[in-house]
């Protein structure tokens, strides 16, 4: 209830927040801000997500069901868009990792905060956020694949696509990375890279710590539940008045522990749905930025190699080498331009996302604390109320 509300009024990284500088008429037939992954249907090992989006034309909604493979398909297609100049400079919206349900322990390690709780709600919301980001992205939203993904009744991604273009690349140039790490032609990118590096680590750590907090809260909730249940077992049907009084008390304590459990559960839920998602997104986005910066660095390395080659080239090959160098230069410049825009956009967006998360978190926690306090106040009254005799002086 709360989540949907929130999703509608303020999805993380909603296009309104993210919308870049360029105003392009969206080719998309759906409104990006309405895209939601409403639920995950589990069929054995297979998770199917229901994606709902509102048509731009007017009333009416698209309901499609997609598996993770479809999401992956979309992501790969985005990576390999060909008609976008400087595509390597784009910070691609990060797709959450695949949810492998056969190993719950691993799942948490893989997905972090998204795997908390008994439901897939956080995961769905993260996927929804991903789609919104893609749809809201001025360059990426133009692709036909997204339209297909969001509207086609047929699942698009069942055929294998060439995978992990950039991943392979990143492995190949691992060595270069270190060399080129310290020097950059552009100060902006150098500082950004350093900054990104520290933030990536820190945000990951924060997310992990926060995950631990949430998990502990969930454990407390469980422990409260067990305690409450055990107290119920203490209730014995007896005509003994002393026993009966005690039984009644056990029931009351059990109720209190039950409400305690609900409170902690709610707190944990609030944590996940607000700051949790925010931190998770932040940390995945930092990774995405890192990827982008790395790709740009690769371009730089390519350019440098090309320049070197051109310089050393024998006259016979000189022309060809110059051609390559020029192409590399152009490519690199395009990437850098896009990258600069993307970085600026990303910085704005992430601050907005974190603000949103923090404010929402704060508000929800206040709400929860208030309602719990009220409840306990009443329980306290009830406990004191029907008591026979005066209270023992404390």
């Amino acid at each position: 209830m709360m989540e949907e509300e929130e999703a509608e009024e303020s999805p993380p990284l909603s296009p309104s927040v993210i919308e870049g500088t360029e105003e392009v008429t969206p080719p998309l037939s759906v409104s990006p801000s309405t895209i939601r992954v409403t639920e995950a249907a589990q069929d054995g090992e297979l998770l199917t997500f229901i994606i709902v989006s509102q048509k731009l034309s007017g009333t009416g909604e698209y309901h499609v069901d997609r598996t993770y493979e479809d999401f992956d398909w979309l992501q790969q297609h985005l990576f390999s868009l060909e008609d976008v100049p400087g595509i390597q400079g784009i910070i691609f919206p990060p797709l959450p990792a695949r949810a492998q349900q056969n190993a719950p322990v691993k799942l948490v390690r893989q997905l972090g905060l998204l795997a908390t709780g008994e439901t897939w709600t956080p995961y769905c919301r993260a996927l929804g956020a991903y789609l919104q980001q893609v749809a809201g992205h001025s360059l990426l939203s133009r692709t036909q694949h997204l339209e297909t993904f969001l509207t086609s009744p047929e699942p698009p991604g069942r055929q294998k696509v060439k995978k992990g273009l950039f991943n392979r690349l990143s492995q190949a140039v691992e060595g270069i990375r270190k060399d080129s790490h310290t020097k950059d032609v552009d100060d902006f990118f150098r500082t950004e890279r350093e900054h990104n590096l520290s933030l990536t680590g820190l945000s990951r750590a924060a997310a992990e710590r926060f995950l631990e907090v949430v998990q502990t809260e969930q454990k407390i909730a469980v422990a409260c539940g067990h305690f409450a249940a055990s107290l119920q077992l203490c209730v014995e049907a007896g005509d003994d008045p002393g026993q009966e009084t005690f039984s009644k008390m056990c029931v009351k304590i059990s109720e209190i522990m039950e409400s305690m459990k609900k409170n902690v559960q709610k707190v944990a839920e609030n944590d996940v749905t607000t700051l949790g998602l925010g931190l998770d997104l932040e940390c995945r986005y930092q990774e995405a930025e890192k990827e982008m910066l790395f790709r740009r660095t690769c371009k730089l390395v390519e350019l440098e190699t090309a320049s070197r080659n051109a310089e050393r080239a024998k006259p016979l090959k000189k022309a060809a080498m110059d051609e390559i160098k020029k192409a590399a230069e152009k490519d690199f410049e395009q990437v850098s331009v896009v990258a600069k825009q993307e970085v600026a956009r990303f910085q704005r967006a992430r601050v907005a996302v974190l603000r949103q998360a923090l404010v929402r978190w704060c508000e929800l926690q206040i709400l929860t604390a208030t309602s719990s306090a009220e409840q306990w106040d009443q329980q306290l009254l009830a406990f004191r109320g029907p008591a026979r005799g005066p209270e023992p002086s404390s």
Partner: protein
Amino acid sequence: MATSSERTSPPPFPDSEDQDLAECEGVGDRVSDEDGDGDDLFLSASGPTMSDMDPALPTTITNAPSEVLFEPPLDLMSSPILETETKPAAAAVVKPLVEAVVETVAEPVAELVEEPLDEFDDLVDLSSDVPSVQATSAAAAESPLVEVEAETPSEEACEDFVDLSGSDSDSSQEETLLEVPADSAAASSDPQDVSTALPPGDVATGSAAHEQPGALLEVDIGQASANGEKQPLSEDLFFDPLANLADAGPPPTAAVKQPAPPPQQQQPQQPPLDLFEDDPNDLFGESRHAKSAKQQPSSLFGEVDEDIFGEPLGAPAAKKAGNMASREQRETTVGTKTSGLGGGGAGFGDVGGPLNNNYEKEPADIFSEEAVTIAPTAAAASSSRTNGVHGAAEEGDIFAEATVELSLDSPRADRKKNTTAAKPSTSATTLSSAATDLSKTHSASLEELEEEEQEDNFDVNISVTNPEKIGDGMNAYMAYKVSTQTTLAMFRTKTFTVRRRFSDFLGLYEKLTEKHAPNGFIVPPPPEKSIMGMTKVKVGKEDSSSGEFVERRRAALERYLQRVVCHPSLLQDPDVREFLEKEELPRAVGTQALSGAGFLKMLNKATDAVSKMTIKMNESDVWFEEKLQEVEAADQQFRKLHGMVESLVVHRKELSLNTACFSKSVAMLGSSEDNTALSRALSQLAEVEDKMEQLHQEQASCDSFSFAELIADYIRLLGSVRGSFDHRMKAWQRWQDAQTMLQKKRESEAKLLWANKPDKLQQAKDDIAEWEAKVTQYEGDFDRVSSTVRKEVVRFEKEKVKNFKRQIIKYLETQLKAQQQLIKYWDAFLPEAKAIA
């Protein structure tokens, strides 16, 4: 002040008393012999015959003076059984009186017979002797009075006792007789008739019949007269233990019931029963204390208040009275009860005293005013009580205790009386009308009284503070400041502080268990020794866990002491007072047995013993059987709950830890953040999280102290409860063994008779007498322990509910506060979050 004279009189003539006692026993022996030999008629089943008769006889004897009742027994006596009749009578009187006296004064008969206490021999002997003497005299007839006087060196004392035997019964009898007609002539006369009519009718049935007058009398009185409650009590004191001993316990009441008017059938049993359970029980319990008090080294005399010594003894009634008067104002039931009990003990101790006094004082009302109605008698009773309160401590406190219920117009408007005054009026009305509600109101009133007691116990406030490590290395120990705040007069000052080390606490527990556990009391256990925890402290590791350990233990010790002083009987223990007051305490030794695993093992052993014995013991009382099961079930549940809470506490601590980590993480994130607003917000958030860590920490300790510690306490307490069941079982076993022994002695006597060996016969007879006495006494012990256990368990359960309630309220309050604090934190943070641009 007859009592005071009494008190002083004993010492001068110890030896002659002993002889008297011997004489008395001789009488008893002879009687029993004759019973065994000739009166097989009366030997309904086995040994118990004698005791069967006993209960009845005291009453008959006490009845003697009252004409109406006296005559039927006379008839009895004139019948062929006359001879045996009178003798058992004598024996009966001797026994119950002796027992009552002995028990209340110092010790159960057992101790008297078996191991006379050196110091108190005199007292005991005197008191036991005198009654017996007078009893014999009374039994024989009124004439032997002279003899008695001649025998007892102090005339005064003797007279007192004579009075007792005669007058006490006189007065009570008189009262009942007088009241009855006045109040509801028809109703009361009926029972009287029955009682008078019955004995002759049932004479043929033998001993059972003898009991009836007594039982009936009780019944009648209980129903018909306002004094009834008091009457049964006093009679019960003599009557019940013995009657029960008879093994055929039910018969007396059963016999009574049938002849008695149908509508009254059930009430009669209950009031006396209740009374017996509660009041006499206390009496006995107290008397135990008295004994223990005496056994204390004489250093007590010098260092501890004399009151300690005097009060439990019951003898210094005057002091008691003073105490009582002062206490009464604050209305500490402890105080009143103590005085009631201790005093009751005293009263009984000086059997001559209270009863005699009663006689002396009440006659004014009773005898001078011929047409006494309930109100006057009640007034007399209450006045006697108030007198007791004011100064005439010899005043039969027993009586007072019992009569409290009936005091219609109590001069003093203190709380206890108020409650009780309200009850008597109801009970009086009900009595006169239908008497159906009597038992109910009665028990209700008892409950109320009990509750009051507990509330009033808060007059002693104990805190254990300032844990301090003393010494170095492995010889180091923790010392605690024990501060007491009290308004009780039994303490010298209102506030005092002593330093005690942990083993002192254990030592106190050992002393208390030794003294009180065998009587069925549930002695609150202290926290176990923890080698792990203490070693850490000793090594001087100043980490949080050792600090927590010390705090945990401090709190546990505080709760332990509070439980001890909340116990009305334990509070009276001189050791408790010594522990709280005395500057230097002799080093407790041998507490090693209580350390850690040893302690648990001990508990487990006790449990095993109980379960083994349960198999052997065919439980006569379903209540105990059920309770024991409940206790065991509760133990299991508490252990489980404890596990749950402990894990909850662990998680809370973990949360606190994780929150701290998160806070650090956020702080770092904030410091590397470029966006100034966001950076600021994040560092603010880190601070909020720091505060929350604190909050989680508090919640962890709240969970720990509200539930985990409480439950751990109760697991320990349940061990003590089981221990009390165990002690009851032991008492039972002892009684059974004695019975078996008696049976063997009888058989051997029969063999001797058959073999015609007169030389050994006397020895055999003596043995039988001895064992009969033991059986009687052990049964009394068992009954007493049983009722104590019962009362203690009820008290325990009440305390349990109260404790849990208090804790849960505290818990909720803490939780509430935590939430409010949270809201405050978030409220402060929200603007920061919103300020992010």
